């Protein structure tokens, strides 16, 4: 079941880092794998399908990220949404991405389930074989369910479990991304900084990065 889930999730992403200029040469579907830093060391699977929205090129995307660590699948992040190219002038292109996020976290004290959103804009220079672009986005944890363990209740017995809203957290990120295409294959690299929503607090891992490979079919 897990492998099926992973496979399905894997079919859904990669479009997150896409060379729009190379799109006419690509097939409808793109799958990808990645390794990166995203508040932890994370492995990712992704799937994207190219579509047209109001005559604009777009991708429906989904991805699944799982952090490293001894406990498998106690933490993960999944995203589903879309990405659309809004501006295209010669090599310069601007695209926007909107994704719904569902993630899980568990340690000795608590299990959290969260629904959130991830909005981002990417602008840059895109050529047939390569691209370089800047991106900026905001990942918001909108509503989170907390369920505490007996270990935490030994610490604080009156802790209140349940859904917490409104927003329980958020992080801004900004950085650069670049990639190279060859036939239906593509490799990409992106890196940047992460700041907490107050722009003052640095997370434990104040950087993000991802190296990935995609193939279209």
């Amino acid at each position: 079941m897990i492998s099926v889930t992973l496979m399905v999730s894997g079919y859904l992403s990669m479009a997150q880092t896409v060379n729009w200029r190379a799109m006419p040469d690509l097939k409808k579907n793109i799958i990808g794998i990645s390794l990166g830093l995203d508040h932890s060391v994370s492995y990712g699977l992704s799937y994207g399908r190219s579509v047209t929205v109001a005559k604009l090129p777009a991708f429906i995307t989904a991805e699944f990220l799982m952090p490293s660590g001894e406990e498998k699948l106690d933490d993960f992040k999944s995203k589903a949404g879309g990405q659309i190219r809004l501006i295209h002038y010669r090599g310069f292109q601007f695209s926007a991405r909107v994704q719904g996020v569902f993630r899980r976290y568990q340690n000795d004290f608590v299990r959290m389930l969260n629904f959130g959103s991830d909005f981002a804009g990417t602008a840059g220079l895109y050529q047939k074989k390569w691209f370089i672009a800047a991106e900026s986005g905001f990942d918001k944890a909108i509503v989170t369910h907390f369920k505490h363990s007996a270990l935490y209740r030994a610490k604080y017995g009156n802790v209140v479990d349940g859904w917490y809203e409104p927003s329980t957290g958020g992080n801004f990120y900004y950085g650069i991304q670049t990639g190279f295409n060859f036939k239906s294959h593509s490799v990409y690299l992106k890196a940047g900084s992460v700041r907490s929503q107050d722009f003052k607090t640095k997370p434990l891992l104040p950087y993000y990065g991802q190296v990935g490979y995609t193939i279209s079919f």
Partner: protein
Amino acid sequence: MKKMMIAFMAVWGMVSCTKERVLNEPGNLVPRTVDQDPGLPSIFVNNALLHAEAFGHPDSTLIVVIHGGPGSDYRDLLTSKSLAAHGYRVVFYDQRGSGLSQRFPHKYYTSLGRGAVDLMYDELSGVIAHFRTEVNQKVYLVGHSWGGILAAGYTGKNPDKVDGLVVAEPGGLKWEDIETYVKESRSFSLWSELFNDAGFIEQFISGKTDQHEILDYRAGMLGSKNDITGDDAPVPGNAWRAGAVINAAMFEVGDKYHPDFSAGLEQFQPPVLFLYSGRNKVYTSAWAQHIAGAFKNVQLCKVQGVGHEGIIANSGAWSTITEPNILKYFQSL
């Protein structure tokens, strides 16, 4: 698309139909502090309401137990209240901004600059003054980790006001040593579950400056275990509440001013009992001797079988190694 909308509406409906809870509501995720819960034992010292308790006869020699952090609390040090049965008055307090004591903004500490450390010394003076019943009552300090650093610094500044000093694994007494120790004791592998647990949670909760409930909760999630310092397993009920703001603020002050907690210790004449653990991988015997070198007359004692937190908190180690050595030391004074 239609199915996605239905799923979204279902989830939203489920969430909307439940009672709204907010992270920074006192009492929701972390316990209330003494200024929010009058039922907790407290003392008012130097304009701060501190969570504090004392055991034993009020006129007996005073033992002030000082917790680590900055920002931890005295809950796991309560093992040492058994010293009261040996004829001592044992005092516990949560430092301001820590445990169940009153919270203050980040700037409250940092605006004092180097004086933020003096604030902690003055607080300790205030606690001693509060519990002292007569001027000749002897005062012994027992400090664990940051508490040991604070106790040493206080003793160096007030060598005539302290009659006995026990320190348990102070990371260092000079700032450079503290930095080295902290860095090494937290050098988790990027691929480890510990690192993942510490980092991944920041997507779910990201409190703003001075949102104490949120920041303390998140900090408390990290205090579970550390296999580098020999604290491999989480201990149920080992703490009440972390003090994230004072922790960040004091490290900021330390980074900027490099305080020397060994200053004046050459003036302290009595011997010092220096405890360190057998399982802390970075607190080796060589490191213990290096740090203990700041004391004029020091007795080193290795507490085998436990890590950093277990020196006092582990009831087995406490009753068989730590307490007997502390009692022997106090009796020698």
